[in-house]
Protein backbone atom coordinates (compact mmCIF):
# COMPACT_ATOMS: atom_id res chain seq x y z
CA UNK A 1 0.00 0.00 0.00
CA UNK A 2 1.56 3.31 -0.97
CA UNK A 3 1.54 6.21 1.45
CA UNK A 4 -1.40 8.00 -0.19
CA UNK A 5 -3.67 4.98 -0.01
CA UNK A 6 -2.47 4.42 3.55
CA UNK A 7 -3.70 7.90 4.55
CA UNK A 8 -7.16 7.14 3.19
CA UNK A 9 -7.31 3.74 4.91
CA UNK A 10 -6.11 5.40 8.09
CA UNK A 11 -8.89 8.00 8.00
CA UNK A 12 -11.69 5.63 7.12
CA UNK A 13 -10.76 2.71 9.34
CA UNK A 14 -7.79 2.90 11.68
CA UNK A 15 -8.30 6.39 13.09
CA UNK A 16 -11.91 6.98 12.10
CA UNK A 17 -12.72 10.42 13.55
CA UNK A 18 -16.06 9.39 15.00
CA UNK A 19 -15.85 5.71 15.87
CA UNK A 20 -12.25 5.71 17.10
CA UNK A 21 -11.30 9.27 18.02
CA UNK A 22 -14.74 10.48 19.12
CA UNK A 23 -14.20 13.96 17.70
CA UNK A 24 -16.81 16.30 16.33
CA UNK A 25 -19.69 15.01 18.40
CA UNK A 26 -21.88 18.10 17.99
CA UNK A 27 -22.59 17.64 14.26
CA UNK A 28 -22.66 13.86 14.76
CA UNK A 29 -25.58 14.19 17.12
CA UNK A 30 -27.29 17.16 15.56
CA UNK A 31 -27.57 16.47 11.84
CA UNK A 32 -27.88 12.68 11.68
CA UNK A 33 -31.68 12.75 11.61
CA UNK A 34 -31.56 11.13 8.18
CA UNK A 35 -28.99 9.44 5.97
CA UNK A 36 -29.03 12.25 3.43
CA UNK A 37 -28.41 14.93 6.07
CA UNK A 38 -25.52 12.92 7.47
CA UNK A 39 -24.08 12.45 3.98
CA UNK A 40 -24.43 16.16 3.17
CA UNK A 41 -22.82 17.25 6.41
CA UNK A 42 -20.02 14.71 5.96
CA UNK A 43 -19.25 15.82 2.41
CA UNK A 44 -19.27 19.53 3.28
CA UNK A 45 -16.93 18.86 6.20
CA UNK A 46 -14.71 16.82 3.85
CA UNK A 47 -14.52 19.74 1.42
CA UNK A 48 -13.48 22.12 4.19
CA UNK A 49 -11.03 19.59 5.62
CA UNK A 50 -9.26 18.94 2.31
CA UNK A 51 -9.05 22.62 1.34
CA UNK A 52 -7.88 23.71 4.80
CA UNK A 53 -5.29 20.92 4.95
CA UNK A 54 -3.84 21.88 1.55
CA UNK A 55 -3.62 25.59 2.38
CA UNK A 56 -2.21 25.09 5.86
CA UNK A 57 0.33 22.55 4.61
CA UNK A 58 1.40 24.97 1.86
CA UNK A 59 1.77 27.82 4.35
CA UNK A 60 3.33 25.75 7.13
CA UNK A 61 6.79 27.26 6.73
CA UNK A 62 5.49 30.84 6.58
CA UNK A 63 3.17 30.73 9.59
CA UNK A 64 5.07 31.71 12.74
CA UNK A 65 4.78 29.13 15.48
CA UNK A 66 3.16 31.48 17.99
CA UNK A 67 0.47 32.57 15.56
CA UNK A 68 -0.38 29.17 14.18
CA UNK A 69 -3.73 28.71 15.95
CA UNK A 70 -5.20 32.07 14.84
CA UNK A 71 -3.83 31.50 11.34
CA UNK A 72 -5.37 28.03 11.17
CA UNK A 73 -8.70 29.35 12.41
CA UNK A 74 -8.75 32.08 9.74
CA UNK A 75 -8.01 29.55 6.98
CA UNK A 76 -10.69 27.15 8.23
CA UNK A 77 -13.24 29.94 8.66
CA UNK A 78 -12.61 31.18 5.12
CA UNK A 79 -13.08 27.70 3.68
CA UNK A 80 -16.28 27.27 5.68
CA UNK A 81 -17.61 30.57 4.35
CA UNK A 82 -16.95 29.43 0.77
CA UNK A 83 -18.66 26.06 1.33
CA UNK A 84 -21.54 27.86 3.06
CA UNK A 85 -22.11 30.14 0.06
CA UNK A 86 -21.75 27.30 -2.47
CA UNK A 87 -24.31 25.20 -0.62
CA UNK A 88 -26.73 28.09 -0.33
CA UNK A 89 -26.48 28.55 -4.09
CA UNK A 90 -26.53 24.97 -5.35
CA UNK A 91 -28.25 22.77 -2.76
CA UNK A 92 -30.69 25.11 -0.97
CA UNK A 93 -32.83 22.31 0.48
CA UNK A 94 -29.86 20.62 2.17
CA UNK A 95 -28.60 24.05 3.22
CA UNK A 96 -31.80 24.82 5.07
CA UNK A 97 -31.91 21.33 6.60
CA UNK A 98 -28.39 21.66 8.02
CA UNK A 99 -28.88 25.32 8.97
CA UNK A 100 -26.55 26.69 11.60
CA UNK A 101 -24.40 23.56 11.62
CA UNK A 102 -22.73 24.57 8.34
CA UNK A 103 -21.04 27.70 9.75
CA UNK A 104 -20.34 25.73 12.92
CA UNK A 105 -17.98 23.46 10.95
CA UNK A 106 -15.42 26.13 11.98
CA UNK A 107 -15.37 24.85 15.53
CA UNK A 108 -15.41 21.17 14.56
CA UNK A 109 -12.38 19.78 16.35
CA UNK A 110 -11.63 17.25 13.60
CA UNK A 111 -10.57 20.05 11.25
CA UNK A 112 -8.39 21.96 13.68
CA UNK A 113 -7.10 18.65 15.00
CA UNK A 114 -5.91 17.51 11.56
CA UNK A 115 -4.44 20.93 10.82
CA UNK A 116 -2.43 20.80 14.04
CA UNK A 117 -1.50 17.14 13.98
CA UNK A 118 -0.89 16.57 10.30
CA UNK A 119 -1.00 19.51 7.90
CA UNK A 120 1.43 21.63 9.92
CA UNK A 121 4.06 18.90 9.59
CA UNK A 122 3.56 17.49 6.09
CA UNK A 123 3.54 18.41 2.40
CA UNK A 124 0.34 19.67 0.74
CA UNK A 125 -0.36 16.60 -1.44
CA UNK A 126 -0.17 14.03 1.34
CA UNK A 127 -2.09 16.40 3.63
CA UNK A 128 -4.83 16.53 1.01
CA UNK A 129 -5.06 12.73 1.06
CA UNK A 130 -5.13 12.83 4.85
CA UNK A 131 -8.05 15.24 4.58
CA UNK A 132 -9.85 13.02 2.07
CA UNK A 133 -9.37 9.96 4.30
CA UNK A 134 -10.55 11.66 7.48
CA UNK A 135 -13.41 13.34 5.64
CA UNK A 136 -14.59 10.06 4.12
CA UNK A 137 -14.33 8.38 7.52
CA UNK A 138 -16.48 11.14 8.98
CA UNK A 139 -18.95 10.99 6.07
CA UNK A 140 -19.36 7.22 6.28
CA UNK A 141 -19.88 7.37 10.03
CA UNK A 142 -22.45 10.16 9.76
CA UNK A 143 -24.32 8.46 6.92
CA UNK A 144 -24.38 5.16 8.87
CA UNK A 145 -25.67 6.79 12.05
CA UNK A 146 -28.13 8.86 10.02
CA UNK A 147 -29.33 5.79 8.11
CA UNK A 148 -29.77 3.83 11.34
CA UNK A 149 -31.81 6.61 12.93
CA UNK A 150 -33.86 7.06 9.77
CA UNK A 151 -34.73 3.34 9.55
CA UNK A 152 -35.86 3.22 13.18
CA UNK A 153 -37.43 6.65 13.30
CA UNK A 154 -39.14 6.89 9.92
CA UNK A 155 -38.79 3.46 8.28
CA UNK A 156 -36.91 4.88 5.29
CA UNK A 157 -33.35 5.20 3.99
CA UNK A 158 -32.49 8.19 1.76
CA UNK A 159 -36.24 8.82 1.71
CA UNK A 160 -37.07 5.40 0.23
CA UNK A 161 -39.48 3.28 2.22
CA UNK A 162 -37.75 0.03 3.17
CA UNK A 163 -39.63 -1.13 6.23
CA UNK A 164 -42.98 -2.92 5.66
CA UNK A 165 -46.03 -0.68 5.79
CA UNK A 166 -47.11 -2.28 9.07
CA UNK A 167 -43.96 -0.96 10.78
CA UNK A 168 -44.75 1.69 13.33
CA UNK A 169 -41.85 4.22 13.25
CA UNK A 170 -40.22 4.92 16.63
CA UNK A 171 -40.17 8.64 16.03
CA UNK A 172 -38.06 9.39 19.11
CA UNK A 173 -35.06 8.19 17.13
CA UNK A 174 -35.21 11.14 14.77
CA UNK A 175 -35.76 13.54 17.68
CA UNK A 176 -33.02 14.84 19.98
CA UNK A 177 -32.98 12.02 22.59
CA UNK A 178 -32.56 9.38 19.87
CA UNK A 179 -29.20 10.86 18.94
CA UNK A 180 -27.92 10.34 22.48
CA UNK A 181 -29.30 6.79 22.63
CA UNK A 182 -27.80 5.72 19.30
CA UNK A 183 -24.37 7.13 20.22
CA UNK A 184 -24.49 5.51 23.65
CA UNK A 185 -25.32 2.11 22.13
CA UNK A 186 -22.44 2.57 19.70
CA UNK A 187 -19.92 3.35 22.44
CA UNK A 188 -21.31 0.53 24.60
CA UNK A 189 -20.81 -1.86 21.69
CA UNK A 190 -17.23 -0.65 21.33
CA UNK A 191 -16.72 -1.22 25.05
CA UNK A 192 -18.10 -4.72 24.70
CA UNK A 193 -15.92 -5.60 21.71
CA UNK A 194 -12.93 -3.79 23.26
CA UNK A 195 -12.63 -1.81 20.05
CA UNK A 196 -10.35 1.22 20.24
CA UNK A 197 -12.29 4.32 21.15
CA UNK A 198 -10.93 7.51 22.69
CA UNK A 199 -13.67 7.77 25.28
CA UNK A 200 -13.22 4.24 26.57
CA UNK A 201 -10.40 3.22 28.87
CA UNK A 202 -9.06 0.48 26.60
CA UNK A 203 -7.79 3.02 24.08
CA UNK A 204 -5.53 4.78 26.54
CA UNK A 205 -2.32 3.94 24.71
CA UNK A 206 -3.75 4.62 21.31
CA UNK A 207 -4.94 8.08 22.31
CA UNK A 208 -1.60 9.67 21.47
CA UNK A 209 -1.88 8.70 17.84
CA UNK A 210 -5.17 10.56 17.52
CA UNK A 211 -5.59 13.77 15.60
CA UNK A 212 -6.40 15.83 18.65
CA UNK A 213 -3.30 17.21 20.28
CA UNK A 214 -4.76 16.91 23.73
CA UNK A 215 -5.16 20.64 24.09
CA UNK A 216 -8.88 20.37 24.57
CA UNK A 217 -9.33 19.54 28.21
CA UNK A 218 -13.03 19.66 27.62
CA UNK A 219 -12.85 16.77 25.17
CA UNK A 220 -14.86 13.81 26.37
CA UNK A 221 -11.79 11.64 25.95
CA UNK A 222 -9.90 13.61 28.53
CA UNK A 223 -12.18 13.17 31.52
CA UNK A 224 -12.34 9.47 30.82
CA UNK A 225 -8.61 8.99 30.79
CA UNK A 226 -7.83 11.09 33.83
CA UNK A 227 -10.58 9.36 35.75
CA UNK A 228 -8.79 6.05 35.69
Amino acid sequence: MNKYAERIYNGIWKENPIFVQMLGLCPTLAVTTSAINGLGMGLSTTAVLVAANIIIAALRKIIPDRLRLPAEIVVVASMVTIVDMLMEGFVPSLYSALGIYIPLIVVNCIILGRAEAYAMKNKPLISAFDGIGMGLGFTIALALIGGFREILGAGTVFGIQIMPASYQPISIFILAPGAFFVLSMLTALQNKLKAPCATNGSAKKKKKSGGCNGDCLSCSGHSQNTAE
Partner: protein
Amino acid sequence: MVELLIIAISSALVSNVVLSQFLGICSFVGVSKQVKTSAGMGGAVVFVITIASIVASLIYEFVLDPLGLDWLKTIVFILVIAALVQIVEMFLKKCMVSLYNALGVYLPLITTNCAVLGVALNNVKYEYNFLQSVVNGVGTAIGYTIAIVLLAGIREHIEGNDIPHSFQGSPIVLVTAGLMAIAFFGFSGLL
Protein backbone atom coordinates in the same frame (compact mmCIF):
# COMPACT_ATOMS: atom_id res chain seq x y z
CA MET B 1 -41.29 42.73 27.55
CA VAL B 2 -43.41 39.62 27.00
CA GLU B 3 -41.46 38.98 23.84
CA LEU B 4 -38.14 39.12 25.73
CA LEU B 5 -39.50 36.73 28.34
CA ILE B 6 -40.53 34.30 25.61
CA ILE B 7 -37.04 34.47 24.06
CA ALA B 8 -35.44 33.84 27.47
CA ILE B 9 -37.66 30.84 28.29
CA SER B 10 -37.36 29.32 24.85
CA SER B 11 -33.57 29.63 24.76
CA ALA B 12 -33.05 28.38 28.33
CA LEU B 13 -35.56 25.55 28.49
CA VAL B 14 -37.63 24.78 25.40
CA SER B 15 -34.82 24.63 22.86
CA ASN B 16 -32.07 23.97 25.37
CA VAL B 17 -28.67 24.59 23.85
CA VAL B 18 -27.23 21.22 24.81
CA LEU B 19 -30.18 18.88 24.90
CA SER B 20 -32.01 19.96 21.78
CA GLN B 21 -29.48 21.95 19.74
CA PHE B 22 -26.46 19.75 20.55
CA LEU B 23 -24.04 22.65 20.98
CA GLY B 24 -21.26 22.33 23.54
CA ILE B 25 -21.56 18.55 23.85
CA CYS B 26 -17.81 18.15 24.45
CA SER B 27 -17.73 20.13 27.66
CA PHE B 28 -21.19 18.84 28.60
CA VAL B 29 -19.85 15.28 28.69
CA GLY B 30 -16.28 16.17 29.69
CA VAL B 31 -16.68 18.57 32.61
CA SER B 32 -19.78 17.10 34.25
CA LYS B 33 -18.16 14.73 36.72
CA GLN B 34 -18.83 16.89 39.77
CA VAL B 35 -21.49 19.46 40.54
CA LYS B 36 -18.89 21.95 41.76
CA THR B 37 -16.72 21.99 38.64
CA SER B 38 -19.73 21.94 36.34
CA ALA B 39 -21.20 24.94 38.17
CA GLY B 40 -17.84 26.69 37.63
CA MET B 41 -17.99 25.87 33.94
CA GLY B 42 -21.58 27.08 33.80
CA GLY B 43 -20.59 30.36 35.42
CA ALA B 44 -17.76 30.88 32.95
CA VAL B 45 -20.07 30.12 30.02
CA VAL B 46 -22.71 32.59 31.25
CA PHE B 47 -20.01 35.23 31.57
CA VAL B 48 -18.45 34.69 28.14
CA ILE B 49 -21.67 34.15 26.17
CA THR B 50 -23.19 37.32 27.63
CA ILE B 51 -20.19 39.44 26.63
CA ALA B 52 -19.80 37.65 23.28
CA SER B 53 -23.43 38.15 22.30
CA ILE B 54 -23.22 41.85 23.23
CA VAL B 55 -20.05 42.40 21.19
CA ALA B 56 -21.08 40.19 18.26
CA SER B 57 -24.47 41.83 17.87
CA LEU B 58 -22.94 45.32 18.11
CA ILE B 59 -20.44 44.41 15.39
CA TYR B 60 -23.13 42.89 13.22
CA GLU B 61 -25.52 45.78 13.65
CA PHE B 62 -23.05 48.64 13.17
CA VAL B 63 -20.32 47.20 10.94
CA LEU B 64 -21.23 44.07 9.01
CA ASP B 65 -24.86 44.81 8.18
CA PRO B 66 -24.51 48.47 7.05
CA LEU B 67 -21.48 47.61 4.91
CA GLY B 68 -23.16 44.58 3.34
CA LEU B 69 -20.52 42.24 4.71
CA ASP B 70 -23.00 39.74 6.04
CA TRP B 71 -21.12 36.83 4.43
CA LEU B 72 -18.03 37.56 6.53
CA LYS B 73 -19.89 36.86 9.76
CA THR B 74 -18.46 33.40 10.45
CA ILE B 75 -14.85 34.59 10.17
CA VAL B 76 -15.46 37.80 12.10
CA PHE B 77 -17.40 36.12 14.91
CA ILE B 78 -14.88 33.35 15.54
CA LEU B 79 -11.99 35.84 15.65
CA VAL B 80 -13.93 38.21 17.88
CA ILE B 81 -14.79 35.39 20.27
CA ALA B 82 -11.22 34.11 20.43
CA ALA B 83 -9.86 37.62 21.03
CA LEU B 84 -12.60 38.37 23.53
CA VAL B 85 -11.84 35.32 25.64
CA GLN B 86 -8.18 36.36 25.74
CA ILE B 87 -9.04 39.94 26.74
CA VAL B 88 -11.52 38.82 29.39
CA GLU B 89 -8.89 36.46 30.78
CA MET B 90 -6.23 39.19 30.97
CA PHE B 91 -8.68 41.66 32.49
CA LEU B 92 -9.83 39.25 35.16
CA LYS B 93 -6.26 38.24 35.98
CA LYS B 94 -5.33 41.87 36.64
CA CYS B 95 -8.50 43.29 38.14
CA MET B 96 -10.68 40.52 39.56
CA VAL B 97 -8.33 37.86 40.81
CA SER B 98 -10.91 35.98 42.88
CA LEU B 99 -13.26 35.53 39.92
CA TYR B 100 -10.28 34.57 37.73
CA ASN B 101 -9.27 31.86 40.18
CA ALA B 102 -12.85 30.64 40.46
CA LEU B 103 -13.21 30.25 36.68
CA GLY B 104 -9.71 28.82 36.33
CA VAL B 105 -9.02 26.59 33.36
CA TYR B 106 -12.59 26.79 32.06
CA LEU B 107 -12.19 30.28 30.68
CA PRO B 108 -9.76 29.54 27.80
CA LEU B 109 -11.64 26.34 27.01
CA ILE B 110 -14.74 28.28 26.13
CA THR B 111 -13.25 29.53 22.86
CA THR B 112 -13.72 26.05 21.45
CA ASN B 113 -17.21 25.73 22.87
CA CYS B 114 -19.49 25.82 19.85
CA ALA B 115 -22.35 27.20 21.96
CA VAL B 116 -20.71 30.66 21.94
CA LEU B 117 -20.43 30.85 18.15
CA GLY B 118 -23.84 29.17 17.89
CA VAL B 119 -25.52 31.94 19.90
CA ALA B 120 -23.91 34.67 17.80
CA LEU B 121 -25.01 32.97 14.56
CA ASN B 122 -28.51 32.26 15.88
CA ASN B 123 -28.95 35.92 16.81
CA VAL B 124 -28.28 36.82 13.17
CA LYS B 125 -30.43 33.99 11.82
CA TYR B 126 -33.50 34.99 13.84
CA GLU B 127 -32.84 38.69 13.14
CA TYR B 128 -32.84 39.63 16.82
CA ASN B 129 -32.15 43.26 17.70
CA PHE B 130 -29.52 44.20 20.27
CA LEU B 131 -31.64 43.67 23.40
CA GLN B 132 -33.15 40.44 22.10
CA SER B 133 -29.67 39.13 21.25
CA VAL B 134 -28.42 39.77 24.76
CA VAL B 135 -31.49 38.12 26.30
CA ASN B 136 -31.09 35.16 23.97
CA GLY B 137 -27.40 34.89 24.93
CA VAL B 138 -28.05 35.00 28.67
CA GLY B 139 -30.96 32.56 28.34
CA THR B 140 -28.88 30.10 26.31
CA ALA B 141 -26.03 30.26 28.80
CA ILE B 142 -28.39 29.70 31.73
CA GLY B 143 -29.89 26.74 29.87
CA TYR B 144 -26.39 25.32 29.43
CA THR B 145 -25.69 25.77 33.16
CA ILE B 146 -28.97 24.11 34.14
CA ALA B 147 -28.27 21.13 31.87
CA ILE B 148 -24.64 20.59 32.93
CA VAL B 149 -25.35 20.97 36.67
CA LEU B 150 -28.28 18.55 36.46
CA LEU B 151 -26.18 16.02 34.57
CA ALA B 152 -23.35 16.37 37.10
CA GLY B 153 -25.80 15.79 39.95
CA ILE B 154 -27.06 12.61 38.30
CA ARG B 155 -23.51 11.45 37.51
CA GLU B 156 -22.46 11.84 41.14
CA HIS B 157 -25.21 9.37 42.02
CA ILE B 158 -24.35 7.04 39.14
CA GLU B 159 -20.78 6.72 40.48
CA GLY B 160 -21.90 4.54 43.37
CA ASN B 161 -23.99 2.19 41.25
CA ASP B 162 -23.20 -1.13 39.66
CA ILE B 163 -23.31 -0.44 35.93
CA PRO B 164 -22.95 -3.25 33.37
CA HIS B 165 -19.38 -3.33 32.09
CA SER B 166 -20.25 -2.30 28.54
CA PHE B 167 -22.04 0.81 29.72
CA GLN B 168 -19.33 2.13 32.01
CA GLY B 169 -17.85 5.46 31.04
CA SER B 170 -19.41 7.54 28.29
CA PRO B 171 -22.29 5.21 27.25
CA ILE B 172 -24.16 5.64 30.54
CA VAL B 173 -23.59 9.40 30.43
CA LEU B 174 -25.08 9.53 26.93
CA VAL B 175 -28.09 7.46 28.02
CA THR B 176 -28.58 9.86 30.94
CA ALA B 177 -28.35 12.83 28.57
CA GLY B 178 -30.92 11.18 26.29
CA LEU B 179 -33.35 10.73 29.18
CA MET B 180 -32.78 14.36 30.18
CA ALA B 181 -33.53 15.40 26.60
CA ILE B 182 -36.85 13.53 26.82
CA ALA B 183 -37.60 15.31 30.10
CA PHE B 184 -36.82 18.68 28.52
CA PHE B 185 -39.42 17.95 25.81
CA GLY B 186 -41.92 18.60 28.58
CA PHE B 187 -41.03 22.28 28.49
CA SER B 188 -42.26 22.64 24.92
CA GLY B 189 -45.76 23.05 26.33
CA LEU B 190 -44.64 26.21 28.14
CA LEU B 191 -44.90 28.50 25.13
